[in-house]
C-alpha cells in the first residue's frame, strides 16, 4: 500500500517567520507564516494542504519549491536536507525533481512565446533529451496532458489557448523534467468551473500512471476530497489537523476543520444550521502568544487553551489534531480528566 511506500519528500519542523510591516521604529513584529510544519509526500499519492488565505499554505509550498529559505526546520529529499543547499547545480537538480504549478496560467506563461518554446526550454536547460529528440518529447508531453493532436498546439501562443489549456501547458512544462514531486498551488481556482474537473482528473491520472507525489494546495475542501488521499489543515501558520481525507472530512477533530466544513456550500444538503463564528484577532499568526491560535474563535475552548499551546496529537489511527479538547495529549488527559471525542 501507498502508506508503506518510501517518502519522496519529507518536511520536518519547517518554520518561516516574516518581519511584519508595522513598527517602523523597530517594534519588530513577526508573522509566523509557518510554524513547526511536518509531513511526508509519498509517490503515487496526493496530499491536500488546505487553509484560508493567510493560513501559511502557500508559504509552505514556496518553501518546498525553494523560493524562500526557512527560518528553521528541514526539507528532506530522498533523505537529504535540501533546505539550505546553495550551489546552483544542487538547486537545479532538486528543481528537476520537485516542480511547481501556479495558480495563474495567464501569468506563468510568457505571452510572446509559443507552446513549443515553453516545453523545449526545460528539456534543454536540464538536458533531459538530446537536441534531436526534443520535438518528439514535446509531442509526448502534450499528449500526456490531454492536448491532442499535439501538432495543433505547438505553434500556439498563450492568448490563443483557453484557461484550461494554458494550465495543461503549465503542467506539461512541469512534467518535462520528469519530476517525482509536483507542488500545485491552487491550480484550478482561476479556471472556469466546467473545466476544473478536467485538471483534477489529470492530476489523478498522473498520480496513478507516473507514480508522482502531489502536494495540492487549496482552499477548496470539496476538490481536496476529490483528488487527495491525505489532507493537512492549516490555521495561522500551524497544522491543526491531518489524516486520511475521508476520515478527516467525515469526522473532523479540530473545531476549525468543523467550522470550515460547516461553511462550504453543499448542494446535497437542503437545510443547514447557521454557523456562529466568534470574533478573534484578524491575524492570529502575528507574534502569536502561548496558547492555541484558534482560541478566540473556538466554541469549545477551555481555560487551558489560552495558556498552553496544544501539540499535534494522534488521537485516532493516522488522524491527528492540535486541540486540548478533541485531541488531548495523554498527560493533559490525566490532569484535566478530559476524554478525547470519538
Amino acid at each position, binding site marked *: 500500500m501507498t502508506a508503506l511506500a518510501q517518502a519522496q519528500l519529507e518536511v520536518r519542523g519547517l518554520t518561516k517567520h516574516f518581519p511584519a510591516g508595522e513598527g517602523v521604529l523597530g517594534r519588530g513584529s513577526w508573522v509566523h507564516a509557518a510554524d513547526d510544519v511536518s509531513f511526508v509526500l509519498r509517490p503515487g499519492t496526493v496530499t491536500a494542504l488546505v487553509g484560508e488565505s493567510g493560513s501559511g499554505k502557500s508559504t509552505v509550498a514556496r518553501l518546498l519549491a525553494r523560493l524562500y529559505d526557512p527560518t528553521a526546520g528541514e526539507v528532506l529529499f530522498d533523505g537529504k536536507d535540501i533546505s539550505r543547499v546553495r550551489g546552483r547545480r544542487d538547486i537545479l537538480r532538486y528543481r528537476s525533481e520537485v516542480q511547481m504549478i501556479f495558480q495563474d496560467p495567464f501569468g506563468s506563461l510568457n505571452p510572446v512565446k509559443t507552446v513549443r518554446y515553453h516545453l523545449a526550454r526545460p528539456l534543454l536547460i536540464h538536458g533531459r533529451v538530446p537536441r534531436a529528440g526534443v520535438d518528439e518529447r514535446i509531442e509526448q508531453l502534450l499528449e500526456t496532458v490531454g492536448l491532442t493532436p499535439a501538432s495543433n498546439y505547438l505553434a500556439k501562443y498563450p492568448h490563443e489557448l483557453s484557461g484550461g489549456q494554458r494550465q495543461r501547458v503549465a503542467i506539461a512544462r512541469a512534467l518535462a523534467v520528469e519530476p517525482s514531486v509536483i507542488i500545485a498551488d491552487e491550480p484550478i481556482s482561476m479556471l472556469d468551473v466546467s473545466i476544473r474537473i478536467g485538471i483534477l482528473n489529470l492530476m489523478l491520472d498522473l498520480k496513478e500512471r507516473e507514480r508522482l507525489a502531489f502536494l495540492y494546495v487549496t482552499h477548496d475542501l470539496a476538490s481536496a476530497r476529490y483528488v487527495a488521499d491525505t489532507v493537512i489543515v492549516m490555521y495561522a501558520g500551524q497544522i491543526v489537523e491531518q489524516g486520511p481525507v475521508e476520515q478527516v472530512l467525515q469526522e473532523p477533530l479540530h473545531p476549525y476543520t468543523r467550522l470550515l466544513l460547516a461553511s462550504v456550500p453543499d*448542494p446535497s444538503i437542503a437545510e443547514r444550521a447557521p454557523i456562529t463564528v466568534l470574533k478573534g484577532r484578524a491575524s492570529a499568526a502575528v507574534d502569536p502568544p502561548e496558547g492555541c491560535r484558534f482560541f478566540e474563535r473556538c466554541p469549545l475552548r477551555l481555560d487551558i487553551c489560552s495558556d498552553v499551546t496544544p501539540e499535534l496529537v494522534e488521537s485516532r489511527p493516522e488522524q491527528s489534531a492540535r486541540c486540548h479538547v478533541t485531541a488531548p495529549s495523554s498527560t493533559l488527559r490525566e490532569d484535566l480528566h478530559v476524554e478525547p471525542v470519538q
Partner: protein
Amino acid sequence: MTAPVEESKLVPASERETLLELRNLAVAYGDVRAVDGVNLSISAGEILGLAGESGCGKSTIANAIMQILRPPAHIAGGSVLFRGEDIVARSTEELRRYRWQNVSMVFQSAMNALNPVMRVGEQFVDMMQAHERISKRDALKRAGELFELVGIDPRRTRAYPHQLSGGMRQRVVIGMALALEPELVIMDEPTTALDVVVQREILQQLQDLQRELGFAILFITHDLSLLFEFAHRVAIMYAGEIVEQAAAAHLREHARHPYTLGLMHSFPPLTGPVVRMTGIPGAPPNLASPPEGCRFNPRCPHCDPAADRELFDLQTSVRPLLREVEAGHTVACHLVEREL
C-alpha cells in the same frame, strides 16, 4: 444557512409584483453580442441567482440593468423595465436617482473599490449627500446605523479601508448598497474573493437582512452550489443566453439542460461516494463567432450525428427557445423539447 424565505413559498411568484424585467435584451461589445435575447424577471423581495461561467454575459447583464455599460458596450436591442418603465432611454438625471435608490449594486471585489485615503464613514456621507439633502452629521449617524446593520462596530466608521479586513470591507460595501433602501440589490460575485467561513457569515447576514427589509437580490456567481442554498430561483446562462430557469429547490433535483447538468457535475460533493466526474469537455465558445444552432452543441454529450442525425441537424442549425417543461421551469434544449 437556513432555507429561503418562508413567505415567498406561500405567495406564488406569478402573484408577486414584478420589479424588474428584461425583455429580449441584447448587449453588444462592438459586433460581439455578449448578451443575446435574454428574458428575465425579478419579483419584489425575491432572490434570483444568475449562474454561468466567465464570459457568459452575466456581469454584462448587471451593467445593463445599472445602465453603466461603457463603450464599445451598448444595448443592441430589447428593453430593461423597472416597474414597467423602460430605463434604457432615461436621462442622466433620472438615472442618477434610479441608481442606489431603486437599484444598487455590489461589484465583484467591491471591497477594493473603497477610496484608500478616505475614512469609510466619509465615503458613506459622500454617497448619501449625492442622492439626498442630508447634513453631514445625520449622514454619519446613518452610516453608523448601517454599520450595525451589517455587523460592524459603528465606531469603525472612522477607520480607513486598510484598517479593515476583506470581509469587513465587503460588509461596508453591502451596507452602502443598502443605504438608500433600494428595492433591488445586484450582487456580482460578492463573496468570491473571501474565505469560505467569511463568505458564509456574510451570506447568512444578507439573508437575515433581506427577510427583514424585503429587498430583492440579483445574485450573480459561477458557484452553482452556493445558489442552490441561497437563491429562491436560479437562471443558468451560457454564451449570452439563458438556457434554463427554475425554482432553486426544483432545479437541484430536476435540472434538464445538459449544460446545467454538466455544471452540477463539476462540483465534487463533500459527502457521499467519491466517483470520477467528467465536468464538461471543451471550453465556452468565442462569442465573436458563436456556434450555429444551439450554442452548447460543440460540448453537448447529446449532439452526435451518428446517434441521431435528425436531432443533430436541428441542434446545429436552429437556436432552441426557452420552453416551459413544468410550471415555473423553462429549458432551451432541442432534446428536452422533443421529449415533451
